[in-house]
């Protein structure tokens, strides 16, 4: 039986996964405190700029290490000057010749890829970087990006619901990327994959929505695609595009092709707060900065509209968590994702809970 509390209050998180913890440019040599899955983590860059993620708590008197500073390869606590290396081992205690043997904190595998800092929240021996969701458009030659990191008072699964049912564009974003036909006449296909789901929506031979008309330069009807690919538990890549109606976009490139790709990291801070990383990437308008900026402005308007929805939903769900809800046809994709997360969590709960092994002995 599916959990009917859409806000998943009190629910655990999938731990065996890479989570987007910060945009690369949010992290420098100053320690950065972040909270992932309820765990307080300090991020910093060591000498070669590679990221380090440690438990954000000095082993001595629990001051957050994010209040401290980086010294070469080490992070130094702001209280009594204890220094920890990237494995979490305390290597220096001022005024004594040797740190206590048990002075160590947990370290988390951390990787920088595609201008994102990723943290593995599960058992470190399973941290396979091949499992990181590729966002190649974040650093691709000839591509522009606009991005956002917003801390949102809403459960992360409400955001995933939104991204796997793009019929909402017709209502939430009608002044930019939405047009009525996206909800009324889209052909929707839901294809489960091994690590997620792909929801493909094709809306054929329809007038372009305002943003599409403006930047696609259409004076004709279009065929429009919205392909959302979700990777369990919390990353998505969405391809949004259009071509001249009937020009073969479903099988080839089509004519007057216009496309942008949106990368999403939907990282739970707690069951009620999410750090949402969103980046729109595109290669059209590369040489037309004023137009690109207007396109970015419209994109940010869209994400602002969504965030208002998430907050309002969460508030309503917290008031009456168990009041019944109805599902509609377009919920097939979102419900698949919810079932998959629930299944992962059930398996995780059944598995023997091992002691966290990445604290240096």
């Amino acid at each position, binding site marked *: 039986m599916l959990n009917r509390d*859409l806000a998943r209050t009190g629910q655990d998180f999938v731990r065996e996964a890479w989570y987007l913890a910060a945009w690369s440019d949010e992290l420098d040599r100053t320690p950065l405190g972040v909270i992932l899955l309820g765990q307080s983590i300090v991020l910093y860059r060591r000498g070669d700029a590679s990221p380090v993620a440690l438990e954000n708590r000095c082993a001595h008197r629990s001051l957050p290490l994010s209040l401290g500073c980086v010294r070469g390869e080490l992070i130094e606590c702001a209280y009594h000057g204890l220094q920890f290396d990237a494995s979490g081992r305390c290597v220096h205690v001022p005024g004594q010749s040797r740190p206590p043997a048990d002075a160590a904190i947990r370290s988390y595998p951390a990787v920088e890829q595609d201008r994102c800092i990723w943290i593995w929240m599960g058992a470190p021996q399973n941290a396979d970087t091949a499992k990181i969701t590729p966002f190649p458009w974040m650093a691709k030659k000839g591509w522009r990006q606009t991005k956002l990191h917003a801390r949102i008072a809403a459960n992360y699964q*409400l955001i995933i*619901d939104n991204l796997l*049912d793009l*019929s*909402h564009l*017709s*209502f*939430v974003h009608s002044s930019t990327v939405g047009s*009525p036909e996206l*909800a*009324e*006449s*889209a052909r929707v296909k839901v294809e489960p994959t091994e690590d997620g789901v792909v929801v493909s929506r094709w809306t054929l031979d329809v007038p372009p929505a305002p943003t599409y008309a403006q930047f696609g330069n259409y004076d004709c009807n279009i065929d429009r695609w919205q392909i959302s690919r979700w990777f369990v538990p919390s990353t998505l890549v969405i391809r949004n595009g259009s071509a001249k109606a009937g020009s073969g976009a479903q099988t080839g490139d089509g004519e007057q092709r216009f496309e942008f790709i949106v990368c999403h990291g939907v990282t739970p801070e707690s069951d009620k707060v999410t750090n949402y990383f969103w980046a729109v990437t595109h290669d059209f308008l590369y040489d037309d900065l004023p137009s690109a900026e207007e396109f970015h402005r419209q994109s940010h308007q869209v994400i602002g509209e969504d965030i*208002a*929805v998430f907050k*309002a*939903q969460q508030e*309503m*769900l917290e*008031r*009456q968590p168990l*009041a*019944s*809800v*109805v*599902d*509609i*046809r*377009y919920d097939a994709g979102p419900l698949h994702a919810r079932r998959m997360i629930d299944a992962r969590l059930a398996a995780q709960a059944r598995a023997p809970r091992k002691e966290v092994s990445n604290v240096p002995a």
Partner: protein
Amino acid sequence: MFLRNCWYAAGFSDDFGHALTARTFLGEAVVIYRTEKGAPIALEDRCAHRRLPLSMGRLDGDRVECAYHGLVYDHSGACIKIPGQTSVPQGARVRAYPVLDRHTYLWIWMGNPRLADPALIPDFSAIDTAGERTSRIRLHLRCNYLLTVDNLLDLSHLAYVHATTTGSPALAEEAVVKVVRVGDAVLIKRWQRNIDPSPTFQQFGGFKGRVNLWQVSEYRAPCYIRVSYGSCDADVPVHEDDDIWSHGAWGFKVLHGLIPETERTTHQFRTVTIHPSQASAAAIAEFKRQCDLIINEDREVFAIQQEALDADPRGLSAWDLRSTATIGADQGLIQARRLLRQRLDAETALPAAASA
């Protein structure tokens, strides 16, 4: 715990137009609007699909369209359209609350709609035509509604909380108080004879010497209250059986429509009508200024009381004040609470289907 099968004042009628307005009543999210013809509609303020408040959506004629996926609801709360599919699943509806306009207020029934008899709306007709001498005040109070009820049923507090306006020590020290049960109402009549007028009465009544004052509070469950404040020269005899709603030489009346927002917050809609002798705009403005002062003094008391209750380690609520020290002046409100308790007990004794 709230009485549900009763009409509450949701606001003044003209607070609501052909637009979606979000409110919380009795802890429930409600969206209110008027149809194109002006009929009031109140629906549960959350889409049956993914819980977005419908108040974020838009009106399409007399129908409400959800802002998220465009589900459309009619005025009965039934979902009549889901974009992209031909049928509407069973259970796709939101609750509709009976609402109607009367005596310049919009009234809402939060209980079983089948029991919503318009004849049960309290008689606030006195305010329908009072014109410029009437002012209407909308308040959001940071307290349980019972604390406000208590306040209005024990006006001895005027002597202390409102000492610079309507109060003077004699209102507490020299009052003769009579509590009478009349049908479904509790009347609390207070007289002070041959006293010095309190500042507001001195100013507007133009008295030369000592006066008789009276305050009468009428309570009906759960929270309909009207209060009459009157005065006359001390040598004019007043008797406790006299017309209790008369202003005498000078006075004013207040009708209070209350509706709990949550256990800790309350909406209050009051209509104040002042004695006909006050015709000048300047006098009315000065009287309104004093009303605002009085209201703010009460609000502060309410908020502090509620904070004290919330902070009490025993977890007290406004109901528990019954068991705290009572003073003689509490007789009226004790009877009022007894009346309310009887109504609540009767309602919880109803079969679930009838009280849902």
